[in-house]
């Protein structure tokens, strides 16, 4: 992409474009960047292969990769109980010091219990219903006096109990159809929620080990957006389209690349800033 842009550029190229040509990132650094991603985000098999294929030395630091991977898998599976236990094994203080993360995990557990109730046989339903309600009362309710957010989060999760069972059991439907069947509560059963919580758990564990809490690639993407906004604010001449081309897509098919000439600013400042807010109210209309 860059090479195309450079060669077809007008004679008077902008400072940015000229600078772009002087940037030379050693291939070895890109390899290290990828290795950092595989380790931080927890892809042990790929990391081991990459060490061989790119002939990189992997310093066997105490990165807790195995533990982090199994915790993530547990969250994805919906086994929040063992995820929370494993986190406590690594660092008993971790969840005590990060209430909103603890709450987010417990709420996921509640959602799983509710889901289990709908998935289970009809005759066990009352018992499972009781389990879910008791769990909410004992584990989540104590949080609600602390913040309105916790309160509404819990209320929304509990509202899943009154979603018709057809919505839960619609296996044949596509992902999007299923989520829309939940209406304003759709975000609660969207896998993105699990991904986000799992990511925050991963970051919290890494932080507790004194490591950087995300992959450097993530950091680069953030810096890229931040710097572009700053540069556009300052009126620095930039290409209108600074999208990222994945997959060498031919010019006419662009289904995969996120560059539709769109340069809108990051829209939702608050979600990143407020730890309580971020797991919640993805769809404000829920209230």
């Amino acid at each position: 992409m860059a090479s195309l842009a450079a060669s077809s550029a007008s004679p008077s190229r902008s400072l940015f474009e000229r600078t772009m040509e002087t940037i030379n990132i050693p291939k070895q650094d890109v390899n290290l960047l990828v290795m950092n991603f595989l380790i931080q985000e927890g892809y042990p098999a790929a990391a081991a292969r990459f060490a061989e294929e790119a002939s990189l030395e992997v310093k066997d630091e105490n990165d807790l990769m195995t533990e982090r991977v199994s915790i993530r898998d547990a969250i994805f599976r919906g086994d929040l109980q063992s995820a929370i236990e494993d986190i406590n094994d690594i660092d008993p203080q971790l969840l005590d010091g990060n209430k909103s993360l603890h709450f987010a995990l417990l709420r996921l557990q509640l959602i799983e219990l509710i889901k289990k109730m709908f998935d289970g046989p009809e005759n066990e339903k009352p018992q499972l219903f009781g389990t879910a309600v008791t769990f909410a009362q004992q584990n989540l309710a104590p949080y609600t006096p602390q913040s309105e957010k916790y309160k509404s989060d819990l209320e929304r999760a509990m509202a899943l109990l009154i979603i018709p069972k057809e919505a839960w059991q619609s296996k044949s439907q596509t992902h999007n159809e299923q989520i829309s069947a939940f209406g304003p509560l759709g975000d609660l059963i969207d896998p993105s929620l699990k991904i986000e919580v799992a990511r925050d758990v991963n970051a919290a564990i890494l932080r507790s080990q004194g490591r950087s809490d995300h992959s450097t690639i993530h950091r680069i993407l953030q810096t890229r957006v931040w710097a572009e906004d700053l540069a556009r604010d300052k009126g620095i001449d930039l290409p209108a389209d600074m999208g990222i081309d994945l997959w060498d897509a031919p010019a006419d098919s662009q289904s995969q690349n996120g560059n539709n000439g769109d340069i809108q600013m990051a829209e939702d400042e608050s979600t990143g800033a407020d730890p309580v807010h971020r797991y919640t109210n993805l769809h404000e209309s829920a209230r």
Partner: protein
Amino acid sequence: MADAGGSSTVRRSSYAGSANIPRRLSYASVVTGGQANASNNPTRSGALAHNSDLIPNNSYPPQYQADPKMYAREHDMSARRRGLSTTSQRPAIPPFCMPSYLEHSRYARKLEAAYEAKARALRDQDAGAASLRGSTRNSSSRARTPQSHRGMTYDVIESIPPIDDDVIPLPFKLSTTDKHQGLDLLNDHYDMRYSGVNGKDLEAASIRTDNPVSPQCGIYYYEVIIRNKSKDCAVAVGFSSSSFSLERLPGWEPQSWAYHGDDGKIYDGQPNGHTYRSGFGERDIIGCGIDFNKGSAFFTKNGHDLGVAFKDISFPSTPIFPCIGMKKHNGILISVNLGQSPFVYDVKNRLAEEEEKVSLQISKTRTDRLHQDQPNETSFLQELVAQFLSHGGYVETSRALSQQVQEERTALHGEGSPLPELQNTDTPDARPRQQIRHAILQGDIDTALAYMDEHFPGVLQAQSNHHILFHLRCRKFIELVLKAAEIDKLTDSLRKTKQSSNGVGHSSAVDDVFDQPMELDDEHQSSMNGSRKAAAESAEMDEYTQLTQQALEYGQTLKQEFGGSSQEHDKYLHDIFSLMPYFDPSPSQNGHLLDASGRTKVAEDLNSAILASLGRSPTAALETVWRQTEALIEVLSHDGGPAAFVNLQAVDHDR
């Protein structure tokens, strides 16, 4: 783009162990402790201009930066001339000072890169001259032994390109010219004394440093130590543009800002000062800091922050310099610390705080608009990495990643995952590309070349890929030299004798040897092997001789095939041939060419060429994003601003 070669690029370097060995080879990194005169006593490891008595010996105030490092770097050109009877005084690259608080900054990295580029340019000129001389000699004289050239002097090269204009080094010493004539410089231009002119006291006398301050460093800080001073006289510490008159105290006139010791007031370009703090006098250490991001300045006294002195500074369009002035009475003695010694104020911490603020801001940035088609950033990151792996032909890694991602997605979504599988990398070209890379990374160039012929015939023969073929073939030569060196290590005891014999690797004789039609006559044998003939019975020795000979023959082939094809190639050939006379090549001038990272470069360039021949982009999206980010930061940090505090590394070195 793939072969950015010797142009002055902003090079990135990670601090991660294995990757960056050649990083500091072209200039010397200076350590603390010793004393040497930078210009008179150059050594291979660089010269040190640290003056240990600059800071008072008493332990008050406490000194920060427990590991004081002098980051003045002396270009190492003279190392090569060590032992030579040359009298030519070539201008070397002026040394620069990098205070240790800026050690990990983006600006420091940039300055180092500019220095490397400059040093390389100088070396290239040398080599160019040498090989030119070598080739003219070829026609007339033959059969020279390397030793016969060791004592040769170098031609004086007059035209030395200036350091990149946009990379301004930081102040290094007090200026010898940009000063009032009543001031005398002492102690290697770190001290100054006021002696007046013809015995009469002038109103004021000021001085600036040799280099201006670049806003790109984010925060600039220096200290002044008032050694001797009588009661009535005044000292002013601050900064000014070059247009400010040195017959006035800084602060009194426009384009100057300063803190005055007599009344404790601060002056921002007007004769009337503002109340600030108490004054300062003998034995006080006054620090002056400029924050280019905030547009403010602060002062410190004996290690304590005195608070913001100037806000919303409208910096002149011309650069500003540290500026010190004094008035009345002879005998004032002042030292400056421009980072050559530890500061008494913990400015490193202040810089870290600023970096932290910017870092926090960045960490709150949402990246959504970069991946609108993906449900979340996680899947975008996975795609980005998968594309890189596919692009690079990392088949096994790619497969392992896809498998794990797929398992994850199944766990999350059940069978009906809304996301397509990660890009399958089993395109027909992926496996051979992986094999080729593997061979190169193992140092097995012949196998890589065979694979190329088998799977991608014609790619290396294309004119546009001539330089890639060249570097691949050169790498084979290097691998032979490496192997020979490996064996040489087994016969360690012999090494000591030979090191004394080859102080210089850069001789045009290097080229002459490779111009030989072929046969290695006795003279060559003895010159190449020297004293080790004695040990020639051993098996290692035989293999060593064989490898050396093989390398020599291969070098001759290279010279025949590629010699004269371009100046750049000639120069590179010259460099790698110069590795030969060293039996243990790693410490030589061109030792960095032997580094394993050279394999990576050749392998990646070849991969890009194959991809280009297949009509695919030679650059992975991941690399493009990184380059875009670097370019944005680079453009933004030009005039200071928050971007100056951003320094991306592949792997965090401390956090």
